[in-house]
């Protein structure tokens, strides 16, 4: 029986069937049965994602354009097999490799990069835990950060601490030319 607190019977929009335990209670405007949320709490791609993408693209393009107007891409002397520049610095993203190769061509040039690459490719298959919160994956985060830092340190060594003949030097000493971009 209907308790009194619910007030008077609603008007019969659809007649209630005596065989059912449910019935239409009310009609409301909306796109979802959830309160204050569209289905799955989603927004439409246009304009929400695409406009953000456009703004991001415009900002990046302006930055690129500014860089391209301010700084000229380098062009060195014409290639000549007779003379290797000293120091012959690779572009910055290869300086880490150059530093490794300076110790050994095979270990530094093949083994170390090969193992890093294999590790990167297999990473999702090696780390099979479902933990996603940072505090549950401290080891992984530490290892990965170390990996990134190691690369960065090698690059910085190559860029700033290597001079003619790939010998040690410091960025503030006179014989350190800048790394070749």
């Amino acid at each position: 029986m209907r308790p009194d607190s619910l007030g008077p019977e609603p008007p019969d929009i659809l007649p209630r069937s005596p065989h059912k335990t449910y019935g239409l209670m009310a009609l409301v405007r909306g796109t979802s049965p959830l309160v204050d949320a569209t289905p799955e709490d989603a927004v439409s791609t246009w304009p929400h994602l695409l406009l953000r993408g456009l703004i991001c693209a415009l900002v990046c393009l302006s930055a690129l354009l500014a860089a391209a107007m301010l700084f000229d891409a380098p062009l060195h002397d014409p290639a000549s097999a007779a003379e290797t520049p000293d120091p012959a610095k690779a572009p910055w993203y290869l300086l880490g490799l150059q530093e490794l190769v300076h110790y050994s061509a095979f270990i530094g040039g093949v083994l170390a990069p090969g193992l890093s690459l294999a590790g990167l490719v297999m990473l999702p298959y090696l780390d099979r835990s479902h933990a996603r919160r940072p505090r549950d994956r401290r080891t992984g985060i530490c290892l990965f950060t170390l990996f990134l830092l190691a690369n960065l340190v090698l690059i910085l060594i190559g860029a700033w601490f290597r001079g003619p003949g790939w010998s040690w030097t410091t960025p503030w000493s006179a014989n350190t030319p800048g790394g070749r971009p």
Partner: protein
Amino acid sequence: MAIQDLKPEPENTSRRDLFATAGWAVLSASIAGVCGAFVRFLSSNTVPEALSVSLIGRPDEYPVGSATFLEEHRVYLLRDARGFRALSAVCTHLGCTVVKDAARHGFRCPCHGSRFNEQGEPVVGPARRALAWHPVALSRDGRLQIDRGRAIGAGHYLALDRR
């Protein structure tokens, strides 16, 4: 058509499997063949190379005690009391051009800092092998001739005085 007709018979299944396997095998083999042929296509049968034997002038152009860098050949021509020798300037590490190290009587490489002694043997750095010695000979008209296509053991001099 009854539904059963569509179900493969057991014997049929294995025969079909066989055909399917054979089909896939032939297809994969053909694709592998095409890839192999393409790799073979890319790997040139002729390699552009300058003539390896070159005439480099008369012996008296190179005084005793001199070390001359023959730029277009990437070779050092050295003359001392024992005679002439030609030392490749191509670093045995990864191929940069070594320079004469005046201070240390040897050669050093700008790329990763390898150093070689006067005989071309590696002293410091990543290079493990010695710089190549190329044969030096006298041509019939009395000019010096080097052959960059061949490497000979260390210690082979062209001695002029003995003849």
